[in-house]
């Protein structure tokens, strides 16, 4: 029994150490855990974000609060602008941080871009932002406005503008 307890203690220490390492040093999330600070050369925004569409998710880091917080999010280049979509089903950690501080860092191709998140609520715009993401992720084609009906889930949409 004593050996089993010591084994559990060792496992807990290993798990705790891994958790701390991921939260502080991992470049992006590991499984369900958010990661730490995104490293890379801070670059000026490109003339077009279309190159971003090659990847399925966008790696972003919130600048709110004390600990770094990086996650992968649904995104879309809409009318030449980078936009992100946050379904509450994946958690509201990033949304709560953006409420406090809209500054985000975006990592792409080894570079880091500084952006400011501006919430988008117009149903027609949200529908247009959501359509390519839902098609890519879930093989569902949608048309028209996306109106909130959230009982269990909510969707938060943001346009990522130049820092003000």
């Amino acid at each position, binding site marked *: 029994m004593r050996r*089993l307890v010591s*084994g559990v203690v060792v496992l807990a220490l*290993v798990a705790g150490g891994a958790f701390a390492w991921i939260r502080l040093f991992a470049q992006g999330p590991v499984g369900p855990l958010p990661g730490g600070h995104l490293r890379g050369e801070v670059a000026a925004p490109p003339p077009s974000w279309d190159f971003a569409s090659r990847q399925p998710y966008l790696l972003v880091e919130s600048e709110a609060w004390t600990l770094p917080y990086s996650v992968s999010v649904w995104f879309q280049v809409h009318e030449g602008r980078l936009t992100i979509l946050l*379904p509450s089903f994946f958690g509201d950690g990033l949304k709560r941080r953006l409420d406090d501080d809209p500054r985000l860092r975006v990592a792409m191709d080894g570079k880091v871009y500084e952006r400011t998140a501006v919430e988008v609520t117009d149903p027609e715009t949200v529908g247009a932002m959501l359509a390519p993401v839902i098609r890519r992720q879930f093989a569902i084609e949608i048309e028209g*406005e996306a109106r909130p009906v959230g009982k269990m*889930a909510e969707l938060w949409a943001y346009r990522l503008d130049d820092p003000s």
Partner: protein
Amino acid sequence: MRSAFPLRDALLALALATLGALGCGPWGIVPGGPLLGSARPLPADASFTEEHALVAIETRSGWLRHSVTVLCMAAEGRLYVMARHAPGKRWVQNMVADPRVRLEIGGELYDGRAVRVDLDPAEADRVADAFLRKYVGVAVERARWLPGPPAEGDTRAELWAFRIDPPGDAS
């Protein structure tokens, strides 16, 4: 007394935990074994499942049981589950081979029978609409399920949907 082999003890604890996990249902994203307990047939009206974000489903492969956590949605009272990248998923292949399933919904166990429906456009579109409402939190003017595997160069996922009927329901 401290053990001289903490790593060995940790591996022993991990092995015991793994064995324990295999003897019960899934744990988050980690698959599990049989859903143990007394089950009743899934009711014909499965609207109550809308209250639950995630359910566990147990599928069969010979005498082995394999359970995973899945999304579920109700449309017109029927219960549906869906799988992204379905052809590569063990639980999906198990259901295709043997449609008998067991579900754990809100701590209760239910037996049911899985019927693949994503190739039926009308029913699949209803599932798509129910999915968007429940998990994305939006209603759209039109939702259309894209059946089958994606064309070459198309980066969309392949999505399958199954209706879970009461066990004796062959409709």
